Structures are given as C-alpha cells and as structure tokens.
C-alpha cells in the first residue's frame, strides 16, 4: 500500500513537471485547444493500455494491437468509402472481426500452450499486411465528406451544460464511493488514511475533474473519445478491483499452477481478456482513423509499444500479477503529454522516438531504484 502511494505520487509529480516544462516553453501547451486534442490522443493510448493491462495481469502479452487497430479501422474505412456501407454497419463489422480474431488468438495461446509473445508477434506482421491489402496501400477516408457515426467518434463534443451535468454526477458518485469504502475499511479494522489525507485525495480528483471540464468547455466541450475512455476506465477498474475475473487474473499472474489447483478457470479467464482486448483494439482503431480522417498505411504504428510502456511506467509487471488502472492511466498520461509536447515544439519524429524510449527506460530504472531504496525488493 505504502509502495503504491510512493510510486503513484512520483508519477503524478513527474506529470506535473512535464506539463510545467512544456507550458513554460509554449503556454499554448496547456491551452484549451491543445488539451482537447491531447484528450483524444490520450483516449487512444489509454483505452488500448487498459486492454493491455488485462492481458498482462495473467502474465500474457499482446504485440499485435497496433497493426490490429490499423487493420480493423481499415476494414471499417474501406467498407464505408469503397463499398458505401452505412458507418454503423461498417463499424459493427470491424468490431465483430476484432472479437473473432482476438478470440481465436486467445484460444490458440491457451489450448496449444504457445507463448503469447510469438503468436501476437505473428499477428503484428499479419495484420499490418492485411491492412495494406484492405486499404490498398493508400489513404482511405472515413466518410464521403458528410458526417457519419465514424467521423462523429472524434468530432462530437458534449454540449457544455451536458458536460457539467455529467461531471457533477460522476463527482458525486466518486465521493459517495470513497466515503463508503472508507467506512467499510474502518468497520473491518483495516488501516485507513487520516481524514485529512482522504479529504485531500477526493479534493484533488474533484479539482482535476472540474478543471478538465472547464478547459474542454473553453474549446468545444468534452470530446466523445474522452467519455469513451472514462467508460472503459470504469469498466476495467470495476473488473480488476471488484469482479471475480479480475481477482483470478491477479492470481494466475502471480502463480498459475496454484491458480489451476485452486479451481480457477485459467484458460477461460485468459481468453476473456483477449476478447476484451479485441473489442478495445477495434475501438482504438476506429477512433484513430476518425481522428486522422482516414485509414493510412502507417496508422497506429508503435501503438502496442506505447500501450506496454504506459502499463510498465504505471507499475504493471510484465511477469503478471501486479498492476492497476490508476497507475496505467498515469503512465499513459505521461507518455501522451511528452509526445504532444514534443510535437508542439516541432521536434523531428526520430527525436520523439528516442525520447519516448528513453522515458520508458528511465521510468523503469527509477521504479526499481526506488523500490530497493525503500527496502521492498522482490529478492526476499
């Protein structure tokens, strides 16, 4: 618990530093427009990172989500633009493809006991190849120029009043939950934060919600992808913290053999995580294509690595059994804030790649260093 707070606090601190740094160079960085765009990009990275978290928890991995997202987005775009399908149908077909493909990959991995690393590495190449075939190596727009569900995915923004109403409800639910949780822990005789710290935590979150809403509303309102992100976040949070499946994932990741002997449905749990990841991959692919306006051959490149990096920076173990939603959210906030900041400064793509890689390595090194310093090593 203690270790968790130290890590999350330092991530939070790093995030503030990053924001201050870029804002000092270019105040526009924290302007309403940039924040709104960043919200959409954050949604893409984080939605897929949440899916990745679910797969990493039981000790699996998926390297294919980047090309997979491009491929599924490509299918939807091609259906809309080349074959004039209605957007909802095209998106539906893309989604079903995602579910089926990830179900199959999951089944291959558990039934034949093949390493997920290899299967999804194959997927990474296969999906990219298929994507190029589907979009014929060119840019395929997501609409014929008129708005459809596909374009709405990133162009729709909540009306400010609706946004405020929504945020008020979310805030109240959050406060209620926190208070209930605290009461419950007290009743069980568990350690709780002092009331000042609890208040401070709630206060910070509520402040962040209000601030984000004000900023979004200054531009065009809360973007739809941010809403989708919030829904996915709540879903994955609930799954990992309050659902039997989530518990089982942590158990499988920390000791698969013991999990099996305890009667935990190991195979079914793992396949389920892949199916959920398939849905989220499709969703990310759609949002990405919608954001760019068309499916491009380079779409979603390195997305899988960004997702894994976000998880790892947020404290998820690649061996499984450790990681949580809040950490992943912070991890991907850091990644996205950096990339967006560097873009704003007009840095070359190659430099951005180098910076992203360095941040990942630095974050993991720092994490292990801090863990050792605080005397909590995995060695014992």
């Amino acid at each position, binding site marked *: 618990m203690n270790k968790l707070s130290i890590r999350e606090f330092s991530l939070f601190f790093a995030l503030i530093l990053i924001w201050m740094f870029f804002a000092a160079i270019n105040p526009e960085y924290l302007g309403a427009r940039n924040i709104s765009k960043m919200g959409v990009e954050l949604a893409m990275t984080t939605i897929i990172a949440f899916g990745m978290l679910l797969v990493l928890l039981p000790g699996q991995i998926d390297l294919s989500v980047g090309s997979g997202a491009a491929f599924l987005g490509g299918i939807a775009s091609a259906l809309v633009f080349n074959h004039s399908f209605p957007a909802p149908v095209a998106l539906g077909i893309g989604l079903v493809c995602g579910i089926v493909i990830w179900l199959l990959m999951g089944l291959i991995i558990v039934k034949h006991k093949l390493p997920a690393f290899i299967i999804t590495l194959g997927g990474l190449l296969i999906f990219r190849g298929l994507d190029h075939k589907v979009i014929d190596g060119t840019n395929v727009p997501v609409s014929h120029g008129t708005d459809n569900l596909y374009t709405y995915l990133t162009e729709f923004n909540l009306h400010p009043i609706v946004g405020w109403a929504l945020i008020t409800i979310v805030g109240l639910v959050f406060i209620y939950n926190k208070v209930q949780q605290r009461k419950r822990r007290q009743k069980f005789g568990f350690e709780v934060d002092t009331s000042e710290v609890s208040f401070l935590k709630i206060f910070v979150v509520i402040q962040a919600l209000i601030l984000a809403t004000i900023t979004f509303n200054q531009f065009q309102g809360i973007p739809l992808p941010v809403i989708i992100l919030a829904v996915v976040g709540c879903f994955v949070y609930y799954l990992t913290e309050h659902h039997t499946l989530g518990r089982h994932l942590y158990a499988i990741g920390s000791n698969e053999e013991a999990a099996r*002997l305890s009667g935990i449905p190991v195979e079914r749990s793992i396949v389920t995580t892949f199916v959920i990841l398939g849905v989220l991959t499709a969703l990310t692919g759609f949002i990405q294509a919608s954001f760019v306006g068309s499916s491009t051959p380079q779409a979603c490149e390195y997305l899988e690595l960004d997702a894994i990096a976000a998880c790892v920076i947020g404290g998820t173990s690649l061996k499984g059994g450790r990681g949580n939603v809040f950490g992943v959210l912070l991890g991907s906030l850091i990644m996205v804030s950096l990339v967006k900041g560097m873009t704003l400064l007009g840095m070359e793509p190659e430099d951005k790649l180098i910076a992203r890689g360095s941040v990942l390595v630095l974050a993991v090194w720092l994490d292990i260093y801090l863990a050792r310093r605080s005397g909590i090593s995995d060695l014992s």
Partner: protein
Amino acid sequence: MSLLTCNQISKSFPGVLALDKVDLSINAGEVLALCGENGAGKSTLIKVISGIYTDVEFSGNLLLNDQSVSFYDLTDAEESGIAVIYQELALIPRLSVAENIYLGHEPTRGGLIDWETLYSDAQALLQKYNIDIDVSAPVSHLGIGQQQLVEIAKALAKDSKILLLDEPSAALTDDEVVRLLEIVKQLREQGTACIYISHKLDEVFQIADRVTVLRDGQSVFTSAISDCDQATLIRHMVGRDIHDMFPYKSHQASDTILDVQDLNVFDEQRQEQRLFNISLEVQAGEVLGIGGLMGAGRSELLLHLMGAYGKRHQGTIRYKGQVVNLHNPAEAIKMGMVLVSEDRKRYGLFLPHSINFNLSIASLDRCSHGGIINAEEEHQNNQHWFDELNVKAPSLEVACKTLSGGNQQKVVLGKTLMNEPSLVLLDEPTRGIDIGAKVEIYEIINRLKSQGKAIILVSSEMPELMGMSDRIIVLAEGHIGGSFERSEFDQEKLLHAAMHTQEVSTSA
C-alpha cells in the same frame, strides 16, 4: 577469543521483530548448532551474518576476530571468509559440476577461463572430501542429494573460515547425511567454524559442539551439547512442554465418501504407468493415511483424484456413491473435493498477495453475485477462517510471503476449507513447519473429522501418519504395498510394505 560474535543483533520487518537482541558466538574449529522453530529468526540471522542485510538494515554488532565488521553485500562477506550453503539450491542446472563449483571465481589465464585448472581443481576438491561425483557431468543429471553436495563443495572451494549450513540435510538420504556429517567433521579438524541449522535433532547431537536455540527472535538458550538432551532442546524451542503430539480421536463407521476401484493411471508426459490397481475407500469422519517412499506415487494419486494428473486407463472413482470423471480441479472443487498440495509455495499460495486475497481466491463464487464481489461478505468469511485457524499475523492485509511456514500452511488450509468440502486431501500438510504449528494442524484435522469430513493424509513422517490415521495404506512404486488397521500399525511393518513391492516388481 571467538572467531565470530554477534552482539545484540536486532532486525525488524514491517509488523514483525524478526531478531531481538540476539547474542551468538563461535570459535574456530567448532560446530555450533542453531535450533529453533520456523519463524524463530534463524534464516534472518544467517542473512545478517552473510551480508545480505547491510549494517544499516539491522542494529547490533558483528565482530570478526573481535574486530567490528560491516558487510556491504554477500561478496563482501565471502571475502572475509564467510560462506553460506542455502537450503534451496542455487546451482545452474545446465552447467557442469566443476563450472558450478567455481561459478564467479573461475581460474583464468590471460583473461580467458582456464578450463584444465578448473576441472583439475574441482576434481582435487571433491577427492579431498571424499565426494564421488563426476566433475564434468551437468548438474541437472544429478540427484537432489548429490546436488546438495555440489552446493557444499562450492562453499568449500572458497576456503571459508566460517561456514553457514542452512538445513543442508533436508533433501538428503540417510547415506548422504552420513557423508555430509563426515565432511563437517573434516572441516572442524581443519579449524573451520561451522554454524549448522537443522530440524533434525539427532544430527545436531551427532555433530555439534555447542547449541544455541532461537525462539521468537531471541536467543533463549546456549549450552555445550554434552550438557543437554533432546527434551531440553525441544522445550526451549517450543517454549512449553508438548505432551500430546498426536491428539487422535477414534472414528465411528459411517457413509462412504470416496470409493476407488482398480485404478490404473498413465503419465502422458513421462510415457509410463504411475499407478497400478489402486483400490481404496474413505468414510465420512475418517482419516485414511497414505504412506510410502518418495516417488511412490502418493502425490500423483491425490492429483489424479482432483482431475489434475494423468490419464486413467482403468478403474472407477465413486464420490458419494456416484461415478465421477473429473477433468480439472475446478470440477473436483465444485463437487466438494479439495487438495492441500505438498509444496505450498509452488502450488498453494499467491505469495506477494495479502492473506485476504489468498483465503477467498478459490471460493469467490460464495461471496459474489453475478461475478461482482461483495466486499463485506468476503471479509466476514476471511475473518472467520483467520480466527478459526489461529493465523498469527498483524492483519488480513499482510502479504503471505512475510508469514512463517506454519502460518502459510494455515492460510492454504483456510483457502481450501472455504469451499466447504466433504473430502479433504492433505499432501504432507506439516512439511517444513515447526512443532507448535504442527500440533495446531493436527487439531484442525481432528476438527474436520468430527465435522464428518473424509480425509486422506499423505505423509512421509511415520509418527505423524500412525498418530493421526484411522487406517493406513502404503504405496510402493505405484502399487498398494500393504494396508493396515489402526490396531496393526507398526513402524517396521509399514516400512517393509513401502519396500516390499519394489522387490516384487524388480524381480518380476
């Protein structure tokens, strides 16, 4: 003047005081036995002496030749002549014996490894201590006992002045133990100081010059070995007299829970038959003991009953009168059969997670609705078993890896019992746990018995098997070697049965 002195050593972990002002000293050419129950602080003390904990992590002084020393790490301690032989093997399976012995200290010539010297030195070393092992064989080809001897040779190669042996005999056969004790004697004659940790008190009396007993992190007793006896040691280790080690309660005939007929099981991975014509039955409220040597197929039998091992070629399993065909442990657990496996760290626990997590993980269905866990119900169940099994820990939120062996085993028991089983399979339930916790586990077994649960108890410890069982069957190389009613229990007969079929099957 003593070679090594520990002066008022204290070390605490969050919530536990592992060492509390421990004093200990050892002279050159002396064997000091360090005794104590699991969780008494022996391993922690070893880690302090061997430099795994640096001096900022504990309080008190380490004196080497009356000079205060502080070690930065393990290598630092090694350079001062302190070597450790751990109870868990730290060998690299694919490397040869000689390579393992000199791992990290390879003799070099011109920056490259000098293989001739490496092998001839290793050969000479093993010869000196009468260890008959081929130095060029990969370690993976050796038995556990031989591997342990290699581990010891590895420490000897460092010419240590102080050798710490942490339960070196745990995995050894009787012959190998004799070999080991001879080596220790040889070392003593050479002037090496040995700290010998063992649960086996007869070894302690054979080899040690002096003994120090740790209990709850304190050094409670130190004496020359000639001035004390086993009973004294046990009393100091446990802190009280144990009168009734096996609180057996007799059993009344009742319904048959499990009825196995003519079971033949094939191991598909190893491509060999493991169990031959096994028939047995267990009634409600009865403890069926299963004895036999290591590798006789006892664990395999339990795992097969749980649907977790092997392919059945023949035979029927009836559970509560119904023929069952189980494919995985999940099905077995749903029917009311549970297993506490022999290796709790590997097959039982989720070590980094809390007691809370571990207790309810196998029975989440009981406290969840539509998959959503009701925190309140879960906590009530967990608290109930935590109290019922008398788990000694500061709270339910403590990680299982910080618990002692006995308390870990109680958590595993709690985890399986939360499924409210009718049939409980226990595979070596008291292995590696201290005497006090053992008695508690026996009491739990009796409680289950009086609740009308059927129990199969696999154990390698004869006194335990004979003390707790209503009936015993003995397995030998996958066959039933003998079956005994409680009135017929006799250590020699049981042992004979365990060896018996071996003779028959090898001569046949």
